[in-house]
């Protein structure tokens, strides 16, 4: 069957958006199917994101806009997948598209309809804490920014009359006649990213959610904190809008609970979001807000999480109370909430809180479970999509991939990672039809305007009544005509409408305009559109300038039309003044080497190499040791109990036999030159002097791994019966008597992790210990297994191992870091002395074997970090470009990472991350040419004094001092155009194209004249 170079992505949350962008960038046409009226998913509802406290919308919105604008991403909103026929490479997907009742081509989101709509509805985006109209945009930054009618609440649909929206819509965009449509799409692959829903806290009746106004879910609390939320970011409680002084979080609501909700798994994200919410709530509060988190285990297992937890405890003063809360009681008068718990001394304490936040878990919605069944994708016992550890994004149906919370509860970076991994997997199956369905736009030749005096055309927009009802547009237009260099002025009803765009194009050509100013709305959303029009008219797109007389005049000065008009004139004057100084900017096309270098021959590195090869790219794989395999060589089972050696041998063989993969063992990187698309790396192969090999490559993936550390405590090294996890696995595999004959086994957790020298959780140890305990007890039920731990962090579905381990009789003793268990070697015997935290009594165990969960630590990554100009974090792991949304990228373009070099993680996550790195790398490699330049800095060598401050402040290593000439040079391929170097340059040698000193000074000057 013929393969199809298009992919359908179901779900427009962050995972779906990422997958869609990666695929569109690497040569596939994408249908992005979203059941809501706009993409964005749950992330768009969040306030801040852990562990960086980034504003969620701020980091998400650029991706949404990019998606909305991408020529090869077709967004189908209000739509859902009904059925999938066909097979891998060629599916027929049936999509049900619900009517919006608003013509997307005509709606300019002026908002008049919603203003006039008389029907108020609970706003689900604010979790019902605020109202919206029956005609609505999902949220202000929505993509696509188009209104939709909520049929269930629309007065016209319910009662047959009203149609106010239709009456007031200047653009005639309302269409009550729209009908449901069934669309058939032919695609080569499908990616499922439908997301999750939060657990319905009403089901746990004893917490009073739904009955007590001040008991809210964590998701509601996100909206309460959000500046664009129901209370504009003022932290108040729902019952009386009073600022709370005491807030409690109750963890594991709908997670790790089989009594009320049948969810035995851990939802993996709640501990971190609760800490974040507590910290942010404190920041929001003017008074000293008391925050308490009631938990079972704090599961801060991710990168930078433990430090975040520590800071919350130590700096922000968030209280952490290890107690499972049995119920919440409301005080009827105050509507305060009473919580009772036992403290460390086993005293019963009662505390009153103004608010209680329930940290609700994640679950797969029922509708999704039904859909999965219909399309033949199998789910696991928890209702999540079942995948293998070795193919973590492949569903049971070939050609259909999965990412995000549908694959299992997880946080944003993991979802983003899987999204890129799923994109990569989908692309791999369709490699031969890459580029067959994508569209490319062509433009007329650019008119050379050099030497011409400026001929500026000014287009003043009414934006329906958005501008015109406040700002006196004719007056502004008349004024614009008097400004220097202005040769043409026009007024538009809607500048952005298609017909106006066509007219603008004609005018630019007819009047020989060489600069264009549009006075309308915000360049953040509309500049690309008008620039596009300029290009279509044969004008360089940088000869365009905007004056924002809507968002900055009419909308914010509604009651002072004269002042708004005056201001609009000045903004136009400033824009015209700058426009006169605009110059056509050049975007340079660079060729690139369509191959990659992978550094590190562990599972992550080999997976990356295989995946790249599957996508049709040549790969050089460099391993510093003498064999491939990395840490996996010492591992027996995945967390899903799959056999690792069999998988590993297969992988090594396929890598070594792959004609597109060149493997260098005993090799290291010595020197690196070049930049994205055009790297040149020099390897030294072999021992001693070694042979030098130069590799040209367009991208590099760093997968240098990490290692188990050598414990320095608990008598390690003093007795052969005290071993590390990795040693334990090896002994067990070899059938060593120390394991085989051990009757009593003690595990000690957090050996070297979560300590000052390694203030991070090693992530894999708890699950490994629980899994090992189960195996030991299965082998011999008479054994005794003891686990000394601080928090059991069997996140996600690994909680099952913890549960089974307990059921099989493993005894768990929690210890405090100040009061660690002690290992005593005496008279040839081993003894572990600790304390049972729950009962408060001493515990002594005399084991035959002690297994230490030794921390995972990075190798010395500094040399490599310097060569590729990428950063490390404080602990020596590589630091990605953005912890939330760019988990496998570096800030340096063309360099990616995966596996343990990034942070400790289990095999399936390493594999997913490796595939993700490939997904991102291919987005670079698949483009034949790189477009660089435009708004970039440049250095004037005659002014440059070579002080190097530009180089020091550039986050992208785009500026460097030429050691010969001692003057700075800007690499346009690396420059992102922030201008930090420019303003740091004392001698004025650096300038930013499009935002140069003369241009900005001219605007300042024009304001005063």
């Amino acid at each position, binding site marked *: 069957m013929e393969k199809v170079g298009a992919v359908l992505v179901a779900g427009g949350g962050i995972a779906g958006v990422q997958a869609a962008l990666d695929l569109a960038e690497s040569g596939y046409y994408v249908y992005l199917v979203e059941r809501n009226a706009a993409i964005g998913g749950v992330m768009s509802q969040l306030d801040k994101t852990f562990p960086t406290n980034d504003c969620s919308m701020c980091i998400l919105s650029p991706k949404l806009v990019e998606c909305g604008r991408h020529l090869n991403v077709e967004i189908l909103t209000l739509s859902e997948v009904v059925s999938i026929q066909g097979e891998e490479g060629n599916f027929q997907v049936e999509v049900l598209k619900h009517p919006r009742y608003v013509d997307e081509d005509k709606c300019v989101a002026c908002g008049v309809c919603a203003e006039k709509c008389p029907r108020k509805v609970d706003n689900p985006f604010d979790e019902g804490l605020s109202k919206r109209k029956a005609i609505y945009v999902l949220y202000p930054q929505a993509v696509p920014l188009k209104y939709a009618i909520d049929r269930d609440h629309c007065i016209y649909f319910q009662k047959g009359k009203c149609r106010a929206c239709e009456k007031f819509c200047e653009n005639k965009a309302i269409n009550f006649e729209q009908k449901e449509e069934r669309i058939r799409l032919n695609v080569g692959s499908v990616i499922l990213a439908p997301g999750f829903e939060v657990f319905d806290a009403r089901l746990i009746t004893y917490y009073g959610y739904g009955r007590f106004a001040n008991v809210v879910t964590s998701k509601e609390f996100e909206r309460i904190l959000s500046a664009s939320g129901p209370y504009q970011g003022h932290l108040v409680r729902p019952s009386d809008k009073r600022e709370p002084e005491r807030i409690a979080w109750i963890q594991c609501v709908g997670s790790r609970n089989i009594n009320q909700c049948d969810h035995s798994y851990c939802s993996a994200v709640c501990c971190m979001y609760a800490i974040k919410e507590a910290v942010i709530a404190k920041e929001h509060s003017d008074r000293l807000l008391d925050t308490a988190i009631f938990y079972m285990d704090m599961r801060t297992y991710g990168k930078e999480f433990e430090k975040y937890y520590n800071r919350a405890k130590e700096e922000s003063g968030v209280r952490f109370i290890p107690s499972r809360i049995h119920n919440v009681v409301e005080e009827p008068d105050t509507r305060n909430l009473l919580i009772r718990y036992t403290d460390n001394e086993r005293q019963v304490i009662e505390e009153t809180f103004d608010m209680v936040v329930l940290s609700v878990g994640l679950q797969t919605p029922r509708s999704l479970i039904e859909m999965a069944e219909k399309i033949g994708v199998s789910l696991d016992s928890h209702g999540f999509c079942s995948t293998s550890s070795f193919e973590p994004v492949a569903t049971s149906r070939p050609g259909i991939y999965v990412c995000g919370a549908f694959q299992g509860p997880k946080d944003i970076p993991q979802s983003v990672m899987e999204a890129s991994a799923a994109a990569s997997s989908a692309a791999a199956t369709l490699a031969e039809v890459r580029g067959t369905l994508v569209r490319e736009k062509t433009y007329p030749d650019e008119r050379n305007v050099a030497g011409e005096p400026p001929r500026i055309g000014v287009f003043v927009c009414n934006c329906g009544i958005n501008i015109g009802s406040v700002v006196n547009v004719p007056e502004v237009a008349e004024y614009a005509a008097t400004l220097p260099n202005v040769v043409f002025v026009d007024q538009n009803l809607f500048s952005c409408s298609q017909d106006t765009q066509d007219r603008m194009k004609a005018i630019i050509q007819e009047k020989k305009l060489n600069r264009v100013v549009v006075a309308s709305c915000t360049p953040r959303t509309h500049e690309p559109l008008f620039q596009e029009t300029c290009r279509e008219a044969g004008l360089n797109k940088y000869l365009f300038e905007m004056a924002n007389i809507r968002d900055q005049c009419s909308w914010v000065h509604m009651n002072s039309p004269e002042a708004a008009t005056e201001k609009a004139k000045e903004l136009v004057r400033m824009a015209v003044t700058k426009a006169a100084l605009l110059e056509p900017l050049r975007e340079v096309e660079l060729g690139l080497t369509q191959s990659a270098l992978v550094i590190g021959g562990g599972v992550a590195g080999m997976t990356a190499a295989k995946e790249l090869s599957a996508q049709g790219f040549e790969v050089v794989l460099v391993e510093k040791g003498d064999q491939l395999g990395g840490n996996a060589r010492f591992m027996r089972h995945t967390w899903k109990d799959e056999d690792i050696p069999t998988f590993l041998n297969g992988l090594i063989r396929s890598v070594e036999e792959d004609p597109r993969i060149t493997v260098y063992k005993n090799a290291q990187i010595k020197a690196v030159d070049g930049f994205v698309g055009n790297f040149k790396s020099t390897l030294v192969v072999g021992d001693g002097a070694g042979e030098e090999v130069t590799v040209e490559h367009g991208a590099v993936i760093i997968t240098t791994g990490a290692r188990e550390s050598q414990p320095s405590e608990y008598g390690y090294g003093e007795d052969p019966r005290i071993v590390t996890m990795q040693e334990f696995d090896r002994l067990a595999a070899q059938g060593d008597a120390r394991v085989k004959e051990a009757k009593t086994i003690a595990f000690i957790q957090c050996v070297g992790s979560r300590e000052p020298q390694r203030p991070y959780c090693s992530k894999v140890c708890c699950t490994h210990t629980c899994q090992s305990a189960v195996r030991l007890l299965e082998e011999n039920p008479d054994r005794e297994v003891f686990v000394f731990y601080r928090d059991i962090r069997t996140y996600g579905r690994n909680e099952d191992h913890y549960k089974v381990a307990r059921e099989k009789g493993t005894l768990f003793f929690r210890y405090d870091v100040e009061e660690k268990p002690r290992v005593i070697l005496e008279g040839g015997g081993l003894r572990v002395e600790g304390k049972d935290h729950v009962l408060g009594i001493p515990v002594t165990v005399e084991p035959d074997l002690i297994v230490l969960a030794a921390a995972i630590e990075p190798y010395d990554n500094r040399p490599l970090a310097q060569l590729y100009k990428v950063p490390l974090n404080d602990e020596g792991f590589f630091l990605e470009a953005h912890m939330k949304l760019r988990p496998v990228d570096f800030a340096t373009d063309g360099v990616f990472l995966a596996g343990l070099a990034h942070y400790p993680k289990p095999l399936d996550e390493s594999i997913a991350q490796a595939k993700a790195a490939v997904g991102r790398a291919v987005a670079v490699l698949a483009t034949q040419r790189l477009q660089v330049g435009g708004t970039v800095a440049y250095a004037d060598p005659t002014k440059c004094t070579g002080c190097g*401050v530009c180089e020091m402040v550039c986050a992208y290593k785009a500026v460097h001092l030429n050691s010969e000439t001692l003057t700075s040079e800007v690499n346009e391929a690396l420059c992102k155009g922030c201008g930090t170097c420019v303003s740091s340059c004392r001698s004025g040698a650096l300038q930013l194209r499009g935002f140069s000193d003369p241009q900005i000074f001219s605007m300042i000057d024009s304001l005063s004249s």
Partner: protein
Amino acid sequence: MDTRVERIRSEAKRLLESGEVDLVIGFRKGSIPMVSRPWFVRTVEDTELLHWDGFCSLNLCNYLTKRKEKVAVVAKGCDTRSLVGHIQENQIQREQVLVLGVPCEGMLDRRALQERAEGTEILEVVESDGRVEIRGRGLERSFPRQEVLQHCCRICRHRNPVLHDRLLSAEVEEHQVERYEDVEEIDSQSPEERWAYFQNMLSPCIRCYACRNVCPHCYCTECFVDCSRPQWVGKSLDLNDVFTFHLFRAFHMAGRCTDCGSCERACPVGIPLRVLTRKLEKVVSERWGFEAGTDLEQLPPLATYRPDDPQDFIK
């Protein structure tokens, strides 16, 4: 003769003879009293004119900018701090320069001495034993050295070279003196008073740019005041433009100025410019714990940051 002079000459001689350096930059006696002149020594004969006294205050780092040859330089504490800045800012390579460090007891203030001569021209100054004697027609007076030091030297905390390859005399004791009394006094005034103070202070400026040109850290090929595209600072003696020049000159010195005092000494009309640079010195020290030119490894304060830098002034 001062043993330091002998050491300077003999080191210079040795370095030139051995070919270790191509050039030695030091001082020779000036053509008039209370002045010394930078002296560029390339031959052994010329070493005989090398000199050292209480008037060797010019910052010789000024002459190192973008030199290509191997050069030895006679340097006081402040000169070496400027040198650290120069090395960090790639104006010279560390390997290229051999520092003949001279621990400094402070340089003498020519203007203060002249004032003490009460109208009589000083024709000779003799330094000995912590005292300074001035002589002229019918004039013979002597003062404790400490009383007639330059202001920058009186409040200096780095009299010993922070960087040197040879030390030409025993290190002198460093003093943790209060550096910002005058700055704090201005700080305590109202904006009106401060505005009036600086308008008054800057009004004699003739824009001869001596302050800029004697400063080792002002090495821009084109100074912002000379820039014509855009020419945002006027070039006349309009006090607003003069003010802007001094404002931005000082701003460009933030975290770089070592308070060597060159600018103030060079100013022919006697403007106390250092109050501006020391204000910023105080800011970078209080905010970021930074002291210019004391650590080759520490990035200049405006070329680095800490995520938790103080930001009380930002809404």
